[in-house]
Structure formats: C-alpha cells, structure tokens
C-alpha cells in the first residue's frame, strides 16, 4: 500500500492482533483503564482480539459482563465520569439498538449538559460490516447514526497500523470515542510498529495519490476503492484515494484540496446509501468546491434494504471494486 501507511517497522501483524496490541498499550499506560464487555475475558472476545489480556492484567481489569449492552455502556459512562478510562466492547455494532439512550442521550451530551463539568474519556470498540454471512442483525454499518450525535468522536480503522494507533488515540482522548472496527478485516496483514503511537483523530489519509479523480472511501471500502483505482488506470484515470480515518470530526479540508486538483469525486461506503455518511461528505464537497467540480459527486453504498444472509445475495448487496468501477464509468461518461 502507499507510503502514507508505511512506517519504519518491518513487522507485520493481522488487524485482529493490532487491536490486541492497541488495547494492551492502553492498559499498560493508563492505570485506571479497564476492558468490559461480553465474552471479552475468558474467550478474549468472540473474535479473539483481547486474547491473552486476562492472563496478563487479571480479572479486575478485563471484565466479562452480563449480556446487557445498556449495562455495558452505562458502566462505561459512569466509570469514565468518575475518572476512569474504560474501554467498553459492543460485540456487534447492530447492538447499538440495545444501548442507544446511553450512547445518544447520555455519553454524547453529558459534557455539554453538565456545564462542562463532566469529562468522559471513554473508548468504545465495536465490530461492523457485512460479508461474513451474519444477516440483517449482525452485519450493519451504522456509523451514520453515531456521527449525527454532537459530543461523540467516531473513527474507522482500515488497516492494522490504524487499528492500533486509533485505539491508543481514542483512549488518550478526553471525549467519548467510538472505534468502528471491521469484521472482514480481522485477518488483514500490515505493518505495525512496536510500542505506543497515535493516529491523530480528525485527519484524513491520502492513501493513493492521483491527479484526475478522487475516491473517498470509508472502512473496508478503502480496499475495494484501491482495487478499483488500479482498474481505472487502464482507462486513463489516475485516482487519488482518501481514507477519512475519522468520520467525526471529518477532515473536509483534505478532501476539498484533492477535489480542487482532480475535479471529479466519488464517495464510497458500505452502509445503506440513503442517508449515509456519504451524503454529508458529498454535500460538504459541493459547498466548498462547487466551482471546481466537472461532474456531479457520485455515491456508492448498499441498497435500501437489510443485509441478506445468503452469500449469493450478500455479495451483490455489498459494494465492491466492480460496482465502484461501474459507477465511475457512468459518472465520467466512459
């Protein structure tokens, strides 16, 4: 992948182990940090990304909680309001439904409502995304829900390097930060430096530089966009691919700068297209760079229907390099 992601370390780790390392660095660094969630201790999470942490840090820093997402988030809110720096685990992002009041009306608003007296240095890790045949209630990408809530920060690591660095940045931040992980990326390999480091929250990453087309792709769609960019080269399109990394706050400047150079842009995400974060990004682009646009801003996202179970259907449902290229050709009149 491009220079922007590379670092001076030769070591490669899968995304799943990069998560473990990020959490471990936080636990080593912050005495008052602990992990709480369903199946996180004995099993190290259903995806194994806390593996080994119970043995290293003990049961008073890694808690298997009762099955209550409302309880888990409430625990995180209460504990962070009293000065701890909890890492809470929401097994699947779909379970936001179970705890939305704690997220939307408590976690997000306390600092503001309490006259600034409350600080919630809370980190929430959650697993999103389709592609694993987990159907309508375990496959959603609901980041638009939480990006719409003033008071929350939302980051979406796309690589092992980002996963570790973003977890550390989230845990050091004095605001509640939701780290939206991707279940299909768990095996993805990439360079991960030893020791702690931060990916700054609110800065986009130009992953592939290009001159005459821009694709802004979030989450796992980054990798589909990079594939699409390679295919578009054959059509004479030199695509710049931007990973926003942080959705809230959103780095409009980096995207606008690119569009001013390339004049044509597409926004891609895995979530349902209607009302997705892509709509916000497209609107910001036309506000700030309308005069530079040579074509309408294109958007690629999922159909306005729940995620199907059958892999035969799901593979059509989820956007891919193929659907990105098809949409780009239409947009660019190729």
């Amino acid at each position: 992948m491009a220079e922007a992601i590379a670092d001076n370390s030769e070591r490669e780790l899968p995304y799943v182990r990069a998560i473990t390392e990020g959490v471990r660095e936080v636990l080593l660094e912050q005495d008052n940090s602990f992990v709480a969630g369903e199946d996180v201790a004995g099993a190290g999470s259903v995806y194994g990304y806390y593996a080994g942490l119970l043995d290293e840090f003990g049961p008073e820093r890694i808690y298997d909680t009762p099955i209550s997402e409302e309880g888990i988030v409430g625990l995180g809110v209460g504990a962070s309001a009293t000065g701890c720096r909890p890492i809470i685990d929401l097994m699947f992002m779909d379970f936001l439904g179970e705890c939305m009041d704690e997220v939307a009306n408590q976690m997000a608003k306390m600092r503001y409502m309490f006259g600034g007296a409350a600080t919630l240095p809370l980190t929430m890790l959650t697993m999103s995304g389709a592609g694993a045949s987990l159907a309508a209630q375990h496959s959603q990408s609901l980041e638009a829900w939480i990006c719409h809530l003033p008071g929350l920060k939302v980051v979406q690591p796309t690589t092992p390097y980002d996963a570790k660095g973003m977890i550390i940045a989230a845990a050091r931040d004095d605001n509640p930060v939701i780290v939206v992980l991707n279940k299909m990326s768990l095996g993805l390999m990439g360079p991960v430096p030893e020791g702690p480091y931060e990916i700054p929250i609110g800065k986009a990453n130009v992953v592939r530089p290009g001159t005459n087309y821009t694709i802004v792709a979030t989450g796992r769609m980054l990798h589909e966009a990079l594939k699409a960019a390679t295919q578009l080269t054959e059509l004479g399109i030199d695509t710049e691919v931007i990973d926003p990394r942080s959705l809230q706050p959103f780095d409009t400047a980096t995207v606008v700068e690119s569009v001013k150079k390339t004049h044509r842009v597409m926004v891609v995400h895995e979530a349902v297209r209607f009302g997705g974060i892509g709509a916000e990004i497209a609107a910001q682009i036309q506000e700030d760079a309308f005069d530079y646009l040579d074509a309408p801003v294109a958007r690629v996202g999922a159909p306005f229907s729940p995620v199907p179970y059958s892999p035969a259907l799901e593979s059509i449902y989820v956007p891919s390099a193929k659907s990105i290229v098809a949409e780009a050709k239409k947009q660019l009149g190729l």
Partner: protein
Amino acid sequence: MSGTDLDALPDGGKHADAERPGVTEESRWGKSATGASIKGANALSLHVPEPVGRPGDEPNFSHVALSAAGEVSRPAVDAYAGDIKAHATSLVRVLSDDHEAVGEWAGATSLALCVQGLRAMMKVRAYDERMLIAQRQGKTSFYIQCTGEEAISCGQRLALERGDMCFPTYRQQGLLLAQDYPLLDMICQVFSNSRDKLRGRQLPVMYSAKDYGFFSISGNLGTQFVQAVGWAMASAIDGNNRIASGWIGEGSTAESDFHSALVFASVYRPPVILNVVNNQWAISSFQGVAGGASATFAERAHGYGIASLRVDGNDFLAVHAASKWAERRARSNLGPTLIEWVTYRAAGHSTSDDPGKYRPKGDAEAWPLGDPIDRLKNYLIKQDRWSEAQHEQTWTALQEEVRAATREAETYGTLNEGPKPSALEMFEGVYEEMPEHLLRQRQKLGV
C-alpha cells in the same frame, strides 16, 4: 435451600484471581475522580464471578442445588405467587435414579405421551447430528445444536395447544419437531437454498412458522421475551383463549427486555409462560456472570409477584407436568408463570464456538441431571412400554428420515452449490410496496 452455593466458589467467589500477575494495587483500585489513588484497608472491591472450573480442571457441579425426585410439592393451579416462593429455589423432579416417576408432579403425563416425547427428542438429536455434519461439509455456514436440552422444548410443546404461540430462541428446534414440522422446510432454511421459505435473508436455524406457533427468531437476544408478553396481552384484549410461551437463555436475562417482560406481565397478568433455560453457559460466560450465584433465575419472578418454579430440564416428565401447570394457570386467566429450566448445554454454543477454551472437559458427562433421552428411555423400559431394540430401531429410522430429507433438500441447493435464492429477494419485502428509490437501485444492480 439456596439455589447456588457461594461458598463452593473459590474464595467465596471474591478476588479469585487477586494473585494474578500484573494485578497491582493501583490497577485494581484505579483512581478517584480527583485523580488520587484509592487503596488501602478501607478500599472497596468488586465481586468478580469466576466459574468453579476452567479447562484442565475436573468437572465440579457441587454448587448446583438439587432436590430429590418427588420431594417438591405440586401447588394448586390457582396458588398465589407469594405462597410458593420456595418453589423458586427447590427443583421439581419426577424421574428418580431408579427410573420411577415419583411424587405429586407424577401422573400428569400418559405413557403414550411419553413415547411421543421420546420420539420427538430423538428426532431433534438426529436432526442436530445431521446438520452438524452438513455444516462441516460446507452446506451451511452455521448451526446451533440443543444437545442435552431436548426435553424442555419437546415437553413444553406437548403441553400446549394448537393456536398457542411460542417466542423461541435459537435453541428450541424441539418446538417444531415435536409437532412433526416438515424436516425439508427446516433443512432448506438451514441451507439457504432456492426453496428456503425465508428466501436467503435470515441466519440458518432462525426458522419462522406461524402455523406451528413458532413466532420467529431474533439474532439480537431477548427481544422475543417482551413480544411474548405483548402477544399474550393481545390474546386477552381480543378475548380469545390462546396463550403465549416466551423463551430466553439465562445469560440473556441480563437484557432489559427480560425485566420489561416481567414488569408488564406483573402489571397486566397476561396468559404467558416465561421460560428461562438455564443451561449454565452463555457462550463463554458461566451463569454466575448473569447473576446466577446471587439468586436463582426463578427467584427473579418474586420481585414482580409472579409465580415461579425451578425445574429439572432434563426430566421429560417434570418438564411436561410443570408446563401443563403453567399452561392451566395461563388459560384459566390466573396470569403468568416463570419457569427456570435447569439443564446443561452439552455441545458448543454454535459451530463457531470451542468450549474447550473456557470449560473443563467431560463436564457434560458429569452433569448431575443426566441425559434427557436416556432418562425417559429408561423409565419407559421399566414401564414395559419400550425396549432397547425398539430404541435402536427408532433411532435408525429417525436418522434415515433426516438423511432422506437432507438429500431432498440438497436437490434445491446448499449454501455454496446448486440453485440459490434469487437476487430479487433482497429488494422484496422491505416494505409492502417497493419504494421508487429502491426500485432504481435494483435496476442499477441489474437485478
């Protein structure tokens, strides 16, 4: 008698792992809001539940409170909830160790019904075994067995009437098989093939069969419990005499859905049976993590003034008799009953789970309440209504029936081979009519 014995847990369940490496005073106590570290003699501490055994340990079930078969009384059907509180900590059992039906709960179940129940349980087990193989062969991505828990769903279904509605979890396939629901329909759903009634949309095992009183299954836990109460309320609002049966695992009683269901059931007293299947594990979390070490799950009902029973879930006769008792109460307008079924999840949580990582080996065999099929079989043999030969024959015949249905289902495709649900299916059914913008997306995808 208390449901669980705190003293049986290491160190009274407290600080079981205080000596683990890496656990410093600082890390244990954290810091106060003012940033000052709290520790020392007066510092508070948490109770962190730890299971009695982990991998490598010998199975140990000394903490599970048992009653002898026949020991627990059978209250009148119109008993007042407050008068039967002891039934939430004792254990209703009918089948004795020497294979007799004993005590006041015996006699509710005819021998003919026992034979029917035995066949149903064996069919469930044969079905689970075959689907597990099918999963390993890649014909489906995922399967959930109910090994060891067959008596609960089969016994209760046979105590209900047609028209009653069950709101199951993913571990009550017996509710369908006890009614001889077509195997072919179940397997086609599991294979997500071209004949799948749920059209490739839903996870395997999440059947939906309104005609058979099987509501549907949610991937997100607990939601069905409140819905069961709502359905029961509607039955009363409509003035008919159907009842609902809600199901939940002990782990999921932590969800607020469980508590909402109980408070609504307490306020309106609708005709509903509230089943808590305590199979000791919720994926990797033992029942203590759901609060089972502080009180039994049946005792949860007391705060709501709801009648409750704690019952041996591996004893088909106890299951049927207790279900019948609760069914009579509900249908006679005497309100809800909560039943905790004490059982053991003998298999992994699902095909994605490896219980060897978090619990001792050989625990299912050591489980003190035995295997439900063996126990009913031994009873019927002792009653001269069954024989080893008959058992063998029935098992072979059921295995063949399931195998034949599987073969037939395969002609409609499996997860990765043969015909599949049409891509159209992911656009249909979102709304009564397809909205214009979805229609456009469909056309764009060339579907």
